[in-house]
């Protein structure tokens, strides 16, 4: 076996086993065949391209290439005639004939009488495959299955050369070893072409994988650049690529094998998937599975990234998020939730589907690992933001957004779990391989669990912080008129909103709340629903806080009005929201109602009890059947003064709840008006009509009703006007 040194650059030149002339003809023939169809029109361009490209290469290389180019020119009408004596041009054995020969050789290797195959056949076959590839370069349907569902001829050719290469290089018994020895030149020729074929398939694979959406964006931002062209046609086999350099506008429908206009989530029409799968099959069959999965993985990762970007989600560092103002962050969280939900609900299943369809059959495990890696990668990037939000300074207003995020994560977890569990029951024979995918998903799952816990803890802590903010609200200034305190208003509205997240919060408290050591004991009894317990704690604190505030009023009646107002407000809010009502419970509401009635009674007693005493004939007015006029006069004076005072002060008090206001007025009127009327009825006659009556009886029953009707208006002005 003689060894002829062949520099890589010159490799297609043959060994000395062929005559010099043959070598040249062979080479020319191959060159011709590579570009046979377009050669004449492109020859000049090719030369130019060769020069351009070689600028970076050494001068020596450049010379060689130019030489090759001109050799092709010379060869325009010089047909390679191989070794058969003087066959007419273009009558080399066809690919089909060569393929049959190769198939025979391959088939015979298993038999008793292995055939041999000549170097020339190997070389011609390799060349024929090259031609096949070069010719199909521009063919839109090159990867489409042939009629009758056969694999496309191009793939068939590539597969055949892959099988041939492995047969020649493998050492399956004597034949293999013999093959390696006997067909040295052929081996290099065949493996060389195979490798180039694989590179070609890899490029095509990548091109086809490019998301139409991505392509669109790229076009928009970078119209007509070399890269945009590369989207459509990456460097590929043969000369045709050179022609692309002049093109500027790429019809979008060509870019992805007719996939233009498809949805971002489902970018690949069935026939594209079909072609992708055919390519995967070819690459895996030739042992190029790592190249194949890498290209696929990176392309889809970038596509997912772009999808996220198009959903408005931008990566932010934790440092930035922690420092961000809430208004800005709130918007970001909204975007994040939208993007996250989209990825989980739509993106993942689309990728899963794509992986499953492209990597089918014996390649299923590859697709599964890729999907797991994709899912993990895309989701982890999104979870960074979540971690950051959970780390921001806690504040009451953040609770709802944190809960929204929590819900998004919570709802996403079962989807990931479902994928994971499908990995944990590996298909037979795929155990060791599927484990890497399972690991990636398990990793993702644990990250989801962890970030969910972090959000949950944060939400629970924010809610628990209410306690301290209530405690901290210890103003010394009573609200004028005994009106509803701003704290009550704020807190009840907040709690009402909180209870719209009731189920989530119950879950959060059950799963993520670690009771602080200092307030743990009080909660034990109600540990079945720690959220409700915490809410009640807040309500009780508010109640206590309000009682303390009520003591700021010097007037006990006003104090009762204040408690009534606030109690009423709380009750109204609770009754008005089924969610909060469900948490607080009827018993609590009843207890509060009882309290309210008590405040009401206190008020009645405090204000009107005294007035009633004035009107009561307790033995002072009528003594032994005789009306004591001075006493009667004094009583009327007292009554008038009391009403005057009440009208002045309590007209300015505030009961903004109309129902409560009217209840109060009705109950006051019910007590005082009949009493006064009867008092009048009994004693008015004892005054002489005219001056005396006018002096002591200033109010009629109707007047009294009128005064009562204007109590709690919070409007002192109208009172004074009326008085005058």
């Amino acid at each position, binding site marked *: 076996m003689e*060894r002829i040194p062949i*520099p890589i*650059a010159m*490799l297609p030149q043959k060994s000395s086993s062929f005559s010099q002339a043959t070598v040249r003809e062979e080479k020319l023939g191959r060159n011709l065949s590579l*570009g046979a169809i377009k050669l004449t029109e492109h020859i000049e361009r*090719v030369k130019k*391209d*060769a020069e351009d490209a070689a600028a970076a*290469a*050494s001068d020596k*290389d450049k010379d060689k*290439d130019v030489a*090759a180019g001109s050799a*092709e020119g010379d060869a325009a009408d010089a047909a390679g005639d191989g070794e058969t004596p003087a066959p007419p041009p273009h009558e080399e054995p066809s690919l089909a004939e060569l393929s049959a020969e190769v198939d025979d050789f391959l088939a015979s290797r298993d038999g008793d009488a292995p055939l041999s195959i000549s170097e020339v056949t190997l070389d011609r076959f390799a060349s024929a495959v090259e031609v096949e590839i070069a010719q199909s370069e521009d063919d839109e349907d090159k990867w489409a299955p042939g009629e009758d569902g056969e694999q496309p001829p191009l793939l068939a050719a590539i597969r055949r050369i892959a099988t041939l290469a492995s047969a*020649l*290089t493998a*050492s399956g018994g004597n034949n293999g070893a013999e093959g*390696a020895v006997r067909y040295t030149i052929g081996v*290099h020729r*065949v*493996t*060389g072409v195979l*490798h*180039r074929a694989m*590179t070609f398939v890899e490029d095509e694979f*990548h091109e086809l994988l490019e998301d139409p959406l991505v392509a669109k964006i*790229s076009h928009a*931002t*970078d119209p007509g650049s070399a*890269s945009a062209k*590369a989207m459509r046609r*990456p*460097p590929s*086999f043969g000369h045709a690529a*050179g022609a692309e350099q002049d093109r500027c506008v790429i019809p979008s429908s060509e870019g992805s094998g007719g996939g233009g206009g498809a949805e971002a989530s489902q970018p690949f029409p069935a026939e594209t998937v079909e072609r992708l799968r055919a390519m995967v099959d070819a690459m895996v069959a030739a042992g190029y599975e*790592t190249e194949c999965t*890498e290209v696929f993985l990176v392309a889809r*990762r*970038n596509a997912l*990234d772009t999808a996220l970007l198009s959903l408005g989600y931008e*990566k932010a*560092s*934790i*440092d*930035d998020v922690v420092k961000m103002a809430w208004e800005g962050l709130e918007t970001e969280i909204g975007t994040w939730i939208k993007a996250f939900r989209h990825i989980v609900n739509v993106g993942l299943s689309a990728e899963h589907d794509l992986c499953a369809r492209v990597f089918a059959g014996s390649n299923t495990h590859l697709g599964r690992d890729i999907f797991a890696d994709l899912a993990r*990668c895309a989701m*982890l*990037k999104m979870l960074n933001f979540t*971690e950051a939000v959970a*780390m921001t300074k806690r504040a009451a207003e953040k609770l709802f957004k944190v809960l929204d995020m929590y819900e998004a994560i919570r709802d996403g977890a079962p989807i990931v779990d479902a994928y994971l569990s499908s990995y944990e029951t590996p298909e037979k024979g795929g155990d060791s391989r599927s484990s890497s995918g399972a690991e990636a998903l398990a990793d993702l799952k*644990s*990250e989801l669990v*962890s970030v969910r816990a*972090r959000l949950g803890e944060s939400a629970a*802590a924010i809610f628990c912080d209410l306690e*301290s*903010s209530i*405690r*901290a609200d210890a103003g010394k200034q009573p609200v004028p008129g005994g009106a509803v305190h701003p704290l009550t208003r704020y807190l009840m509205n907040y709690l009402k909103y909180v209870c719209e997240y009731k189920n989530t919060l119950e879950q959060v408290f059950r799963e993520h709340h670690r009771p602080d050591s*200092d307030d743990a004991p009080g909660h034990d009894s109600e540990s079945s629903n720690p959220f409700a317990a915490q809410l009640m704690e807040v309500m009780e604190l508010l109640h206590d806080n309000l009682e303390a505030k009520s003591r700021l009023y010097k007037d006990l009646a006003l104090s009762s009005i204040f408690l009534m107002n606030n109690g009423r407000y709380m009750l109204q809010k609770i009754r008005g929201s089924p969610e909060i009502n469900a948490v607080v419970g009827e018993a609590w509401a009843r207890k509060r109602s009882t309290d309210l009635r008590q405040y009401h009674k206190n008020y009645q007693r405090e204000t009107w009890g005294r007035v009633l005493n004035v009107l009561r004939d307790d033995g002072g007015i009528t003594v032994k059947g005789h009306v004591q006029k001075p006493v009667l006069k004094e009583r009327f004076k007292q009554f008038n003064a009391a009403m005057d005072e009440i009208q002045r002060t309590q007209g300015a008090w505030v009961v903004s709840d109309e129902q409560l206001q009217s209840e109060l007025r009705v109950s006051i009127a019910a007590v005082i008006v009949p009493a006064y009327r009867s008092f009048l009825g009994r004693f008015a006659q004892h005054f002489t009509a005219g001056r005396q009556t006018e002096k002591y009886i200033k109010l009629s029953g109707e007047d009294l009703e009128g005064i009562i009707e204007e109590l709690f208006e919070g409007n002192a002005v109208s009172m004074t006007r009326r008085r005058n």
Partner: protein
Amino acid sequence: MPATDSSSSSSSSSSPAHHTSFGRSILSLRHHGFPPTPDHSHSTDDREIDAFQRHAADLLLDLLHSDAPEILSLHWTRHLLDSFLICLEEFRSVLFAHAHAAALARAPLDRLLADFFDRAVKALDLCNALRDGLDLLRHCRKHLAIAAAALAPSPAGAAQLGEGQIRRARKALTDLTILMLDDKDAGGGQRNRSFGRAPKDGHQGRGHHRRSSSGSGSGSGSGSGSGSGFRSLSWSVSRSWSASRQLQAIGGNLPVPRPHDVASTGGLASAVYTMAAVLFVTAWALVAAIPCQDRGLHAHFTVPRTGGFPWAGPVTALYDRVLDESKNKDRKHSPGLLKEIHQIERCSRHLMEVTDAAHFPLDHDKEAEVQGAAHELVQVCETLKDGLDPLERQVREMFHRIVRTRTEILDCLSRPNANTTE
């Protein structure tokens, strides 16, 4: 402190990747076993804080010891992270063992802790960037694996390496180089995928085309405008993020506690300072080792030798060692100082050289040479395969631990404020 102990044990068991690889420190073990004596006299405090500082010094010294794995190797980096995690755990238990919540919230300790956690937050972004870097290395490994598989001798050893195999290996290594260089050169001019260095046969137009496409960058289709080849991986941090700046923020102007502060905090000010220094030097070495965005080691860091900090020497020595490594001439343009990255570079360069201008069929010497280089490749592959995943998990653990410790301490800082108003 039963409450502290239970929370610490529950929090570590709830961690997604609980590491049993490093044992609990002596200190925290002690706290676990039985509660310390209730009287927190200053002398006990001082002793435990001293013990913490000395242990930190020992851990760092171990990393520089001659028995230690080679500095900046994967193995060593994992040791480094272990040491960091132990320190953090001890720091945490020192804080909780000594300071009642109210004590932590008292000036100046509250301010010192807030400053420390500000720095720690920056380390979190760093952890994410490092994870990206490890991911990059994982992809590098795949390209190495392609080359290794292409050059692997066939089972019976009878066949020779064919042109196709050599080209495939070279292509994989070229892709690898582009992946590693990534942002630096934007891959332009490097890309010549399938054809060694000499395009031929009229395929010139193709190589040319590829170069122009990768050079302009948007061929990547990622829309990120990264200017890198279509294989490039996106980072999880924003594009403006810089590891170098982050390092400066972690270590810059680290305040040496004043004697007055040390005294008024019962020595805890020193513990905070210790932890901040360990955090910095760990982050520094990790950024040095692992590829990440805008990797630069410009952050200056000094510890006063006279401050009586037992770890001052080891921290400075570690810092200087890493700095020396970064100044090494043939590592200057490396994407990371990790020994394994160096090995990748070295053996892929070696293989490229060996296979450059190869003549087929290869003669015996050449074949042996190629096989030798391929063997190196396989070894690097194995090391990476075994080392990357655990390291990534540790980086993740570092992330989680920092977050958790921060949350715990900040909770403590905020709680007594509420209580005092009662």
